[in-house]
């Protein structure tokens, strides 16, 4: 029986700007079990990073959680104080940020940066912490002789390994990866993903993987949630969602992704831009770009379709027209 580690319940994170509020995350719900990995996929600006930053409460100053709950091991963490939060961060949930190049402080030695959370959260001496750093370096297959170097002496892949070592430092229960491999070239990307997979199996950690790259999801995630304009539009087992997608946006996303084995053909693109999240349209947020609508007023006018498990197989979709895949 798997146990729920993280649950997001109708999370709403808005950004206050001069004009009003940008509803970057507008009612996102999902659960993540212990040891499980969930992929959060969507175009840039769809709210996936904001969702992640809401979980560790590191939103920029204009950002505010305006509704919903975030339950970690059954405890609501949305109203935690700064002190409680600084114990929670990294010890329970650590994060691998996008941009391997800039996530390490250029003027501090790598070992000190990896040791920093250990010294902060665990009552150890500096020497013990350094021992642990050594172990972590071995774990992520980095040369321990390089521990005392500075970040700029590392290649992109090595830096990302160091960042993963840092993320593992305090045995977190959940790791959030925000586009952890985007800045790397393809070969290194594959190595890092293998490493993440291997370590996750070894250490039985949960993982929330944020990316726009569906191939990463199919490699690393048990479950996937597709986000569009601040909402989850489809969610389920990775295989099921990717092979049997129900939401038109997911279908477009999959077909927009070139397959190197398939015949050469024009890559499908989605015309138009995502809606303005300052005044989102009343109905389905995808309706304007959806090829299925074709005169169906229901999509444009009614409320945004709720995320419902119509099939009973744990495959959720938020679409008024999900039953009519033939129209596609």
């Amino acid at each position, binding site marked *: 029986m798997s146990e729920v580690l993280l649950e997001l319940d109708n999370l709403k994170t808005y950004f206050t700007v*001069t004009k009003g509020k940008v509803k970057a995350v507008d009612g996102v719900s999902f659960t993540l079990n212990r040891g499980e990995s969930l992929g959060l996929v969507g175009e840039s600006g769809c709210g996936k990073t904001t969702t992640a930053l809401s979980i560790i409460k590191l939103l*920029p*100053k*204009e950002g505010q959680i305006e509704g919903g709950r975030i339950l970690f091991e059954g405890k609501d963490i949305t109203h935690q104080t700064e002190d409680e939060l600084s114990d929670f961060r990294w010890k329970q949930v650590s994060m691998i940020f996008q941009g391997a190049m800039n996530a390490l402080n250029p003027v501090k030695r790598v070992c000190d940066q990896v040791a920093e959370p250990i010294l902060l959260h665990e009552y150890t001496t500096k020497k013990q912490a350094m021992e642990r750093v050594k172990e972590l370096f071995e774990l992520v297959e980095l040369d321990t002789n390089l521990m005392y170097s500075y970040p700029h002496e590392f290649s992109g892949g090595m830096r990302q390994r160091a960042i993963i070592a840092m993320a593992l430092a305090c045995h977190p229960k959940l790791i959030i990866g925000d586009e952890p491999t985007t800045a790397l070239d393809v070969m290194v990307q594959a190595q890092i993903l293998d490493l993440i997979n291997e370590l996750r199996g070894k250490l039985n950690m949960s993982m929330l993987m944020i990316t726009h790259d569906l191939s990463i999801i199919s490699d690393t995630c048990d479950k996937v949630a597709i986000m569009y304009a601040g909402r989850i539009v489809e969610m389920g087992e990775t295989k099921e969602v990717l092979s049997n997608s129900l939401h038109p946006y997911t279908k477009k996303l999959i077909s927009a992704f070139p397959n190197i084995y398939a015949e050469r053909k024009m890559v499908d693109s989605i015309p*138009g*831009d995502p809606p303005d999240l300052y005044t989102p349209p009343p109905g389905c947020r995808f309706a304007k770009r959806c090829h299925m609508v074709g005169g169906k007023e229901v999509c444009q006018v009614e409320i945004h379709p709720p995320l419902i498990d119509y099939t009973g197989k744990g495959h959720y979709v938020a679409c008024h027209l999900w039953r009519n895949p033939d129209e596609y």
Partner: protein
Amino acid sequence: MESINTHEQLRKRERELKRQKIRNNLHLFFGNKRAVFGVLLLSFFIIMALLGPYFYKYDHFSYYLGPRVGKPTPEFRLGFDEMGRDVLGTVIYGTRASLAIGLSVTFIVVLIGATLGIASGYFGGIIDIFIMRVTEAISIIPTIPLILTLSAIIGQNFQNIIVILGVTSWTGTCKLIRSQTLTIKQRNYVERAKAIGAGNTYIMRKHILPNVFPLIFSNIILTVQGSIMAESTLAFLGVGDPSIPTWGQLLRSAREQGAITTGSWWLFIPAGLCLVALASSFVFIGYGFDEINNPKLRRR
């Protein structure tokens, strides 16, 4: 979105985007209280400089209206200076001189800085190395000793002071313009112009120059402020033209009159306050523009 396929449409779209950007920036600028205050303050001084002498009957050139260093009276609210001139009239008149200095020095600075900076950034290579090495070498010479030396060489009349200030303060602007030119050089409209065979001077004048300016605007504004203050310091040190009543000159003569020990506050408080207010107005505006170009500086 309609497709863009003719040159005409492209130009139209570019113009539209530009207009929208200007609107956005104006919105940001006027959302900054400090900057708005700066604009109001500056407008006050500009009006005072342009119209003040017409509306106020005493000027710097009417002598012995009252006793030497006489106290303020109801008619002469800021008293008299050592030649019996009306201090208020002199201060109003001094606004012109101080603004004129600030603007003309900045003109020289921008002229030298833009020419060398754009040439350096646009041509690159040996020209760039040469210009930047010399700029670097000049920029590390402390300004005041250099100005003192130059003023000893070419003399200290009003025009000379402006020229000296201009030729000693362009290095920062030049470096900034060079770095902005380097980024603008990469943009596609410059590539496009090159592809259709536009000459170097044409590209620099028509494409680089107009696009560099918005980015160095805050630097230009702060140069005006810096020049006004540098002039006042020089005047105070006795380097300057005593016949032109800049505020710095008023402060120098106040000190020479012993105004501090005799407590003749009207000789140096009003001129100093005006100097501070005018200089701060430029600082407020300059930093206001800085926040537009550097979004990080804005309130998060």
